[in-house]
């Protein structure tokens, strides 16, 4: 591994002109998609500098999405943990119930600006699919969402929501029938329909420029949270905690704080435990996680000894993915963010704790971050402040949670 030079130690120097975050990133796609990605990069560069575009996005984030989302001091949860204060950034209160709308809205406006008529999206938990279907309805665009059939079964309410919003939801039967396979199918669709369709990728992964676009659009979370903490708590938090599937809600929270020297923790899906090999933990030293190339990007990928992509498992569909965004791979390698894993059982316990102590049903994805925050809070002094990204609401997970609780005999 090439040593990271001085510039590289500033987390703000990335990506470089080739779409790399240190050794991670790039653009590993079929030739058919290379020009469309170059066009997207150029269109985004212009939109990013265009005050009209930014004003339109800001207005919709305020008047349609309901931003800024609040931050909530979780007093009873903190007391129960017996240590540091746990604060929540309430992305669950954004329209459609998760942070995914921040990205979907920004990219859909970009698609419209590029003259595209149709949006293609993949979805795991269904939150990105719902967000994309929503903005498609808002902007009068066609929308096709690919979803693994296993995920369709476990996130059925979101499938219905997407269909009610007018989206064409297509079941993906191939491979592991989860998010990974939905991305495969979305990329295949895009290879046919590049001229009229926009691929609205939902996380901070994939080929350049997607990780950059998604980070920019989700950074609204961290920018707001920074101001809100200063206003409500009178200071910045000591620790940030967020769950990491592809990594969009985490990078959105972390990025505006990177220069502040604040401790940051990314929480991956520990599934049934790292020893079980049934997990989706890429950045915690699991032996099956190696640098490789999947979905257009060089990053850590769970794989077997022959380079075939490993089957993953998590109770949460949104974290059930074998690879991770390239900027997280870099932050991991720099040691700037600590990554850890929370099991299905721990996430479920955190789900129940937040419900009973704070009256909030978190998404199972976000429950992973809550679980880690509860662990951390117990070990820290009362003055310490933890800020957790509560990335989504849990209504979509009621069936999964009730089945798991029944099985656990609780």
């Amino acid at each position, binding site marked *: 591994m090439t040593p990271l030079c001085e510039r590289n130690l500033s987390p703000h120097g990335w990506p470089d002109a080739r779409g790399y975050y240190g050794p991670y990133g790039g653009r590993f796609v079929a*030739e058919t998609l*290379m020009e469309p990605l170059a066009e997207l990069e150029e269109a985004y560069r212009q939109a990013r500098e265009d005050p009209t575009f930014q004003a339109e996005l800001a207005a919709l984030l305020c008047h349609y999405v309901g931003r800024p989302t609040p931050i909530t001091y979780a007093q009873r949860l903190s007391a129960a943990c017996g240590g540091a204060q746990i604060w929540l950034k309430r992305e669950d209160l954004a329209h459609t119930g998760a942070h995914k709308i921040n990205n979907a809205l920004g990219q859909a406006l970009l698609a419209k600006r590029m003259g595209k008529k149709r949006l293609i999206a993949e979805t795991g938990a269904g939150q990105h699919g719902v967000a994309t279907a929503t903005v498609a309805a808002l902007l009068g665009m066609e929308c096709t969402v690919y979803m693994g059939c296993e995920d369709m079964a476990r996130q059925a309410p979101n499938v219905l929501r997407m269909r009610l919003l007018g989206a064409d939801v297509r079941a993906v039967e191939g491979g592991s029938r989860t998010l990974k396979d939905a991305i*495969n199918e979305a990329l295949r669709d895009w290879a046919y*329909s590049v001229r009229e369709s926009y691929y609205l990728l939902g996380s901070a992964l994939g080929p350049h420029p997607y990780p950059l676009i998604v980070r920019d659009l989700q950074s609204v979370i961290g920018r707001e949270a920074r101001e809100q903490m200063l206003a409500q708590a009178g200071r910045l938090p000591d620790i940030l905690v967020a769950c990491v599937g592809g990594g969009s809600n985490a990078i959105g929270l972390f990025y505006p704080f990177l220069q502040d020297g604040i401790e940051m923790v990314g929480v991956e899906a520990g599934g049934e435990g790292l020893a079980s090999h049934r997990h989706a933990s890429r950045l915690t030293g699991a032996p099956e996680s190696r640098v490789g190339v999947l979905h257009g990007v060089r990053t850590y990928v769970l794989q077997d000894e022959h*380079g075939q992509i490993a089957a993953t498992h998590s109770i949460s569909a949104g974290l059930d993915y074998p690879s991770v965004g390239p900027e997280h791979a870099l932050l991991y390698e720099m040691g700037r963010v600590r990554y850890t894993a929370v099991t299905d059982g721990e996430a479920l316990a955190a789900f129940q704790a937040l419900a009973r102590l704070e009256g909030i049903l978190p998404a199972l994805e976000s429950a992973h971050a809550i679980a880690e925050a509860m662990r951390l809070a117990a070990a820290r002094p009362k003055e310490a402040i933890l800020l957790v990204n509560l990335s989504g609401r849990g209504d979509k997970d009621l069936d999964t949670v009730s089945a798991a609780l029944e099985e656990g005999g609780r």
Partner: protein
Amino acid sequence: MKDRPFGREALAAAFARARAERRAALITYLTAGYPSLEDSPALLKALAQGGADILELGVPFSDPIADGPTIQKASYVALQNGTTPSACLNLVRRLREEGFRTPMVLMGYYNPIYRYGLEAYAQACREVGVDGLIVPDVPVEEAEPLQSACRAYGLALILLAAPTTREDRLRRIAAQTEGFLYLVARLGITGAGDGLTGDLFDRVAQVRRFARTPVAVGFGIAMPEQARALAPWVDGVIVGSAIVERAPQGPGALAEYVASLRAALRLA
């Protein structure tokens, strides 16, 4: 066989022979290990007997993003059959040991190669008698490390151009590809298509202006009539999914189908 030309030279010789016989070269794709690893040697021989000039051997990958349903299914079956990259290399080794001379290139996605090690993979390919590589998810911008490894062992790294490729990148691809230039006939992924479009012929003419290697066209070509229409304009025609679809019918049927394609490539 010691006297078999290798790598770029083997591919050049195959195109030269076809040209001398006044026909376009026929390049066929078959997923290794489909329908089973035991079937693969006989099927590959049948392709050569039917008249294929160059064989593309597909190294199966769990997530074949550039492939349609036929090759997706074949890849899945092949993986279930234990078709690892090493098994593919061994398949080539055994054929070469039996004196099989038809040029062979491995077509497969980047991650298994990356995992094997770029140098180690190129070296193993050289040792067993593979002549080149086609890696659909490595565009010219990301090709340098793999190109270096291939050059070190005399393998041809065959690059692809697509209907969306603009002229500046087309020039770069044409300058860097080795063995031949793989021109993707239409948008989308691999699989039987709905015929050839007029754009394709303009595209072929444009590509030929920049190419310093033979140009072969693939994606969506399944019928002898399509091959016949293309033959006067290109150096080679690539047929993939249509071969894979017929592989379960066995070597005899496959050889017959390949012979029908080959006959269609003869120039009037």
